[in-house]
C-alpha cells in the first residue's frame, strides 16, 4: 500500500512529507487504524526553517485508496515537549512494537509493525526532536500549522462523534472507577484538540464531558467507532497495557514518605584526604537516608587524565566512608568516576532493598568534547517508586568562558544516557526522564565585574548585592540553563578561591576573584531544601565544600493496595476481553432434512448473526482426524466468511446424494448425519447437527446385490439390503437374475421404444422424469412401462451404470482393461475374468448396443459415439486414484482407451 501520494495530497504548498506510516492507535485495549505523518515546512515559509509536525489521520477505509479517505484528527508540533519512545517489551508476544508519542498533556500509544519502516519513522521523529532541542533563539511559533489545525475533525466540531476517541480521553477507560482508584484522570482528561496551543480549544471540561457521553458507561470504550465498523481489534499486547494502567493508578497504591537526602560537592584540587570529612558530611544531628557526594579535580595527574585510573579514588572513598554519619549503617549504591570527577551514592542499609534499576553514565566535555577533565558523572536509581538522578558536573573554568559553561551544561543534558540493563527492552533514560534530579558540582560560574570590590563584599556577607552579578543566577533567570530547576538561597561566602590551608582569598599572582563555583540545584515536586551551606573548616583545597540537605517525598508502594488495584485492573481487562470476544447467534443447531432421495438435491439454510461487538470471522472447521469439514454429500456455502457487528450471513447447506456417495449410504457405511463445527476466530465453537433419512435406491446398489432381489427394491427390508451389500451376504436368493431386473427394465424400455429415436444417448433427458423413473424402478414397474421420454430413460440407464459401487469392469481390472485396448482378444480376456453377473451385464449391454447400431439409419447413432458414452461409465477408476493430478492430465488418452475397448465389442463378435 502506498500512502505517500495520498498524504502528500493533503499537505499545503511548501510543506514536505518526511515520513509516513500506518499504525494502530491504542485506545482502551482496542486499536484503530491511523495514518501518522511527519511533515516539515520549507525554510522560505518561516523565518527558521525545518519546523516539523506530526499529523495523525483517521482513515475512512483500510487500505487507504485516496486522499479522500484521510481526515486529520491531530496536529502535534515537534517542539521540546514532544517525546517518542519505543516499548518493545511485548516483542515476545507478537511482532508489534508500541510507540508512545507524548506532547504536553497528549499521550498517544501506537502499535506499529516491527519493521524497517517503523524503525525509520521513529528515527525521523527522534531526529526532528533532536533538531528542536538543539536550536537556539526564541521558540518556534508553528503558525504554518494553522490550516491543518482548522481542518482537523476535533477542532472543527468538538461534538462530532468521531472527534476525540483519543488515548487522553480514555486512559482511565477501564471503567468509570477512576474515582475510586484515586485521582487518575485529572491531568489526562483533556481533549486532544488542544494539542496545538490554541487557547480557544483548551476548554477541556466541555470536550471531556462530551466524550464521556459517547462512551458506553460500563465499558469505557467508544462504541461509535465499533458501530462504524472500522474494525477495532482487541490488541494482543495485554502486558503493556497492564503496566500502563498500573502506572496511571500509581497514586492509588503509593504513599509519599519523606526521605532526607544529603548532597555534597567539593573541588579538592588534586589533594589527598589528609583531614576527616565529618565536618562536611556529618554535621547534622540525624543521619540522612541518602548520600550523594561529588568531587572534582580529584586527581590532576596526567596519568588520571589520559588513562582514567587513579589511586585517589580509593583514598577519597575511604575518607567518605569514614566521614559519613556514624549513627547508622550505609551501603554504597554506585560510585562513578571520570578523571577528576567522582560521584558516590550511598543509602542507609535498610533502604537498599528498595533501590532498583541503578545505572551510571559519564560525559566528557573537555578537549574535542571527549576528554574527561570537564563534563559530568551521573547515577540514576529508583528508590521505591520514585526515579532519582544525581549529576556531578565540572563545567568549563575561567571568568570569560561563560558560553562554554552553558554549552557544557547543554551537552551534559543531551548526552547523558542511562541504559537499564536488566531489561534491555526498556528505553534508555536521559536526565530529564527522572522525577527527582539533583545537579551538583563545580559549575565554575563567576561574578561579573561590577563597580563593587568583589572581595570586600564577599567577605562582608552582603551576598545579595553580589548575586545580582553572579553568572549562574543570571543565566538561569534568563532561562538559558537549568530551566525548571531550583536553587536555594545562597547564605554562605563564595567557595572559591582560597589559599590552601587557609580562609584567605587567593593571594597568588592570578589573584582570582571570589566566586560561587560550587553549587547544588534540584528538580522535582515534593523536594524541600532544608540546608544549603559551605564548610570552610575544610581548608585543604582552594575550594570549600558545599552541602545541601533535602526532604524528598518518595513514593512507596503499599503492597496491599497495589495488589488490590492490580487485581482490579486484571478483572477489568478480563471483562473487556470477554466482552470483545466474537459472539454470534445461529437460528438453529439442529438441521433435520426431509427424506433425501438419490440424485435429488435439498438445500437448508443457516443464519449466522453477529450479535457481538467485534467483527467475526467464522469458518467451519475439521474435526480431529477428519480431512474435510463436512461429509461428502454436503456442501456448505460460504464455509468461511466475515460478518460485521449487527450483520447476518446466510449459509446454505446443500445435500446431494450422487453416484459417489450413494453406495456408502446404501451399504450403511455412512449415514445422513454430521456434526458441523462452526468456529469463530479467536472465540468459541458452535456445533450444528444435521440429520436425515436416505431413501435407499437401486441406483447406487451393486449388481451382485440387485440380482438377488426378486421383489421391488422398496419392498426389501433395510437389513437385507445391508446384508446383500456386505462382502459375504448371508441371505442369497435361490434364483438370482442374470442381470439386475432394473437394468433389464431400462434396456427393454429402450429396445421397445427407442431403437428408431434420433439422438438417443446424445440428447439429454429431464431431471424430473429421471426422478420418476428412479422411483418407479424402486417401487416396482407395472406393466413393464417406465415413465418419461426415451431420452430420460436412456440417461437413467447411464446413471444407473455409473452409480454402481463396483463398475461393470471392476476396479481391480481397470488397468488391465486399459492395457488391453490395442488388441480385441486381450479385451475379451479381460471380459472373461469378470465376475459372472458383471460379465452378464457387459454382454447384455453390448448386445443391446449392437442392436441399436443395426438401426443406425433411424437413430443416427454410430459406434464411436456409443463406445465413448458407454466406455466412460462401464470402465471407471476408483475415486481414490482418480484424484491425483497427473492422472487428470492423461484424461484424454484414457477416455480414448475406454472408447476403444468398447468399440472392439461393437465391431466384432
Amino acid at each position, binding site marked *: 500500500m502506498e500512502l505517500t501520494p495520498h498524504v502528500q495530497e493533503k499537505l499545503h504548498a511548501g510543506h514536505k512529507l518526511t515520513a509516513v506510516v500506518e499504525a494502530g492507535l491504542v485506545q482502551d485495549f482496542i486499536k484503530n487504524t491511523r495514518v501518522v505523518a511527519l511533515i516539515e515546512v520549507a525554510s522560505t515559509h518561516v523565518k527558521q526553517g525545518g519546523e516539523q509536525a506530526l499529523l495523525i489521520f483517521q482513515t475512512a477505509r483500510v487500505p487507504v485508496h485516496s486522499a479522500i479517505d484521510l481526515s486529520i484528527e491531530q496536529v502535534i508540533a515537534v517542539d521540546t515537549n514532544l517525546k517518542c519512545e519505543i516499548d518493545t517489551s511485548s516483542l515476545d508476544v507478537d511482532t508489534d512494537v508500541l510507540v508512545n508519542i507524548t506532547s504536553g498533556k497528549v499521550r498517544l500509544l501506537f502499535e506499529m509493525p516491527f519493521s524497517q519502516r517503523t524503525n525509520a519513522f521513529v528515527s525521523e521523529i527522534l531526529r526532528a526532536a533532536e533538531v528542536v532541542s538543539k536550536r537556539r533563539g526564541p521558540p518556534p511559533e508553528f503558525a504554518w500549522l494553522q490550516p491543518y489545525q482548522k481542518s482537523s475533525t476535533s477542532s472543527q466540531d468538538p461534538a462530532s462523534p468521531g472527534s476525540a476517541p483519543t488515548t487522553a480521553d480514555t486512559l482511565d477507560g477501564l471503567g468509570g472507577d477512576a474515582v475510586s482508584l484515586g485521582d487518575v484522570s485529572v491531568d489526562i482528561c483533556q481533549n486532544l484538540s488542544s494539542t496545538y496551543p490554541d487557547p480557544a480549544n483548551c476548554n477541556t471540561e466541555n470536550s471531556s464531558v462530551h466524550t464521556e457521553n459517547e462512551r458506553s458507561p460500563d465499558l469505557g470504550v467508544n462504541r461509535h467507532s465499533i458501530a462504524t465498523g472500522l474494525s477495532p481489534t482487541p490488541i494482543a499486547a495485554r502486558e503493556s497495557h497492564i503496566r500502563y494502567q498500573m*502506572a496511571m493508578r500509581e497514586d492509588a497504591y503509593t504513599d509519599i514518605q519523606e526521605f532526607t537526602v544529603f548532597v555534597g560537592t567539593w573541588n579538592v584540587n588534586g589533594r589527598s584526604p589528609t583531614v576527616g570529612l565529618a565536618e562536611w558530611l556529618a554535621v547534622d544531628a540525624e543521619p540522612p537516608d541518602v548520600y550523594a557526594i561529588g568531587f572534582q579535580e580529584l586527581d590532576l595527574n596526567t596519568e588520571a587524565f589520559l588513562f582514567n585510573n587513579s589511586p585517589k579514588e580509593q583514598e577519597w572513598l575511604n575518607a567518605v566512608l569514614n566521614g559519613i554519619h556514624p549513627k547508622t549503617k550505609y551501603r554504597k549504591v554506585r560510585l562513578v568516576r571520570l578523571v577528576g570527577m567522582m560521584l558516590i551514592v550511598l543509602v542507609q542499609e535498610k533502604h537498599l532493598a528498595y533501590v532498583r534499576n541503578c545505572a551510571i553514565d559519564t560525559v566528557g566535555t573537555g578537549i574535542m568534547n571527549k576528554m574527561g577533565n570537564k563534563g559530568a558523572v551521573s547515577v540514576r536509581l529508583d528508590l521505591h*517508586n520514585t526515579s532519582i538522578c544525581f549529576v556531578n558536573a565540572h563545567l568549563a573554568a575561567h571568568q570569560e568562558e561563560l558560553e562554554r559553561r552553558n554549552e557544557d551544561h547543554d551537552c551534559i543534558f543531551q548526552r547523558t544516557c542511562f541504559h537499564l540493563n536488566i531489561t534491555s527492552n526498556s528505553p534508555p533514560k536521559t536526565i530529564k*526522564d527522572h522525577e527527582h534530579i539533583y545537579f551538583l558540582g563545580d559549575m565554575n560560574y563567576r561574578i561579573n565585574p561590577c563597580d563593587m570590590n568583589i572581595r570586600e563584599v564577599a567577605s562582608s556577607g552582603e551576598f545579595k548585592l553580589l548575586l545580582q552579578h553572579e553568572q549562574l543566577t543570571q543565566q538561569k533567570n534568563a532561562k538559558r540553563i537549568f530551566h525548571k530547576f531550583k536553587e536555594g538561597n545562597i547564605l554562605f561566602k563564595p567557595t572559591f578561591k582560597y589559599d590552601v590551608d587557609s580562609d584567605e582569598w587567593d593571594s597568588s599572582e592570578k589573584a582570582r576573584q571570589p566566586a560561587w563555583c560550587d553549587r547544588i540545584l534540584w528538580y522535582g515536586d515534593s523536594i524541600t531544601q532544608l540546608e544549603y551551606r559551605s564548610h570552610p573548616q575544610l581548608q585543604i583545597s582552594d575550594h570549600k565544600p558545599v552541602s545541601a540537605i533535602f526532604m524528598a517525598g518518595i513514593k512507596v508502594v503499599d503492597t496491599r493496595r497495589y495488589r488490590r488495584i492490580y487485581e482490579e485492573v486484571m478483572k477489568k481487562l478480563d471483562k473487556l476481553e470477554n466482552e470483545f470476544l466474537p459472539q454470534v447467534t445461529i437460528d438453529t443447531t439442529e438441521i433435520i432434512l426431509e427424506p433425501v432421495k438419490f440424485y435429488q438435491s435439498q438445500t437448508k439454510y443457516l443464519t449466522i448473526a453477529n450479535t457481538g461487538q467485534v467483527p467475526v470471522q467464522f469458518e467451519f472447521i475439521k474435526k480431529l482426524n477428519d480431512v474435510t469439514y463436512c461429509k461428502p454429500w454436503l456442501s456448505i456455502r460460504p464455509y468461511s466468511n466475515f460478518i460485521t457487528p449487527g450483520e447476518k450471513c446466510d449459509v446454505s447447506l446443500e445435500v446431494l446424494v450422487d453416484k459417489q456417495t450413494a453406495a456408502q449410504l446404501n451399504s450403511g457405511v455412512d449415514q445422513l448425519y454430521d456434526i458441523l463445527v462452526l468456529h469463530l476466530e479467536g472465540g468459541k*465453537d458452535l456445533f450444528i447437527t444435521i440429520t436425515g433419512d436416505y431413501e435407499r435406491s437401486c441406483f447406487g446398489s451393486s449388481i451382485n446385490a440387485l440380482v438377488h432381489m426378486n421383489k421391488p427394491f422398496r419392498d426389501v427390508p433395510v437389513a437385507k439390503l445391508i446384508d446383500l451389500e456386505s462382502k459375504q451376504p448371508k441371505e442369497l436368493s435361490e434364483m438370482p437374475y442374470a442381470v439386475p431386473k432394473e437394468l433389464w427394465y431400462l434396456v427393454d424400455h429402450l429396445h421397445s421404444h427407442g431403437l428408431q429415436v434420433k439422438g438417443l444417448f446424445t440428447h439429454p433427458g429431464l431431471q424430473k422424469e429421471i426422478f420418476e423413473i428412479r422411483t418407479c424402478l424402486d417401487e416396482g414397474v407395472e406393466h413393464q412401462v417406465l415413465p418419461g421420454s426415451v431420452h430420460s430413460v436412456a440417461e437413467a440407464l447411464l446413471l444407473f451404470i455409473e452409480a454402481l459401487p463396483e463398475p461393470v469392469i471392476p476396479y481391480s481390472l481397470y488397468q488391465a482393461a486399459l492395457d488391453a485396448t490395442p488388441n480385441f482378444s486381450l479385451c475379451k480376456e479381460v471380459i472373461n475374468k469378470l465376475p459372472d453377473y458383471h460379465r452378464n451385464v457387459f454382454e447384455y449391454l453390448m448386445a443391446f448396443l449392437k442392436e441399436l447400431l443395426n438401426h443406425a439409419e433411424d437413430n443416427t447413432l454410430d459406434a464411436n459415439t456409443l463406445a465413448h458414452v458407454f466406455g466412460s461409465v462401464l470402465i471407471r477408476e476408483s475415486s481414490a486414484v482418480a484424484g491425483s493430478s497427473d492422472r487428470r492430465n492423461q484424461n484424454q488418452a484414457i477416455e480414448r482407451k475406454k472408447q476403444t475397448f468398447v468399440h472392439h465389442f461393437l465391431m466384432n463378435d
Partner: protein
Amino acid sequence: MAQRGGAQRPSGGGQGKICQFKLVLLGESAVGKSSLVLRFVKGQFHEYQESTIGAAFLTQTVCLDDTTVKFEIWDTAGQERYHSLAPMYYRGAQAAIVVYDITNQDTFGRAKTWVKELQRQASPNIVIALAGNKADLANKRMVEYEEAQTYAEENSLLFMETSAKTAMNVNDIFLAIAKKLPKSDNNARSCWMLQVITFKTGETM
C-alpha cells in the same frame, strides 16, 4: 520531566509473571459446567442456564502471590453425541475440570470415564480437578463425599465439592489449579516482568 514513575513490582512479592494456560471443562450435560464458568468469570448464576451446544470460550485471570495465571477456558458440550469432538478441546490443555452432579450417580460414573480418557489421551502433565457440583443440594445427595475423595486420591486429582449456585469452592478450585500448574517459562505462552515504564505527562523542563 517525569511526573509519574512506573508501576513497579512491590518488593513484598508482586504479580510479576503472567502465565497463560488452557483449561477445559468436561462432564455429563447439565452437571453445571457452564454455571461454574459463569460463576467464576462473571460472578453470576442462572437458574435456567442455556445448554451449551459447542465449546464456549472465556478468559479469566487469577492472581497468585508471585505469578498471575491467565486461564483460557473451554466449556464443552456434555451430550454424548458430541463426545467425539471433545479431544479437539482437551488436546493441548494444561488443565481440566471434570464435573459431576452430586445428586446423580450416573454423572459420577461418566466423570470417571472422562478422567480415564484424559489420562490416556490428553497431555501427560495435565492437571485434572474433579468437581462434585450442586453441593447446595445436599439433601438429594447420591454421591458420597468420601467415595469421590477416595477416587480422586487414587487418581491424584484435585477434588472439591462445589456449588455454582452458592459460589462455594468455585474460585477455590480454579485457584487450586492455578497453584498446581507448573509456572516454568516454557509452560507459559507469555511470561513477563512488570518493569518500570514511564509515561511522561510532558512536563518537561
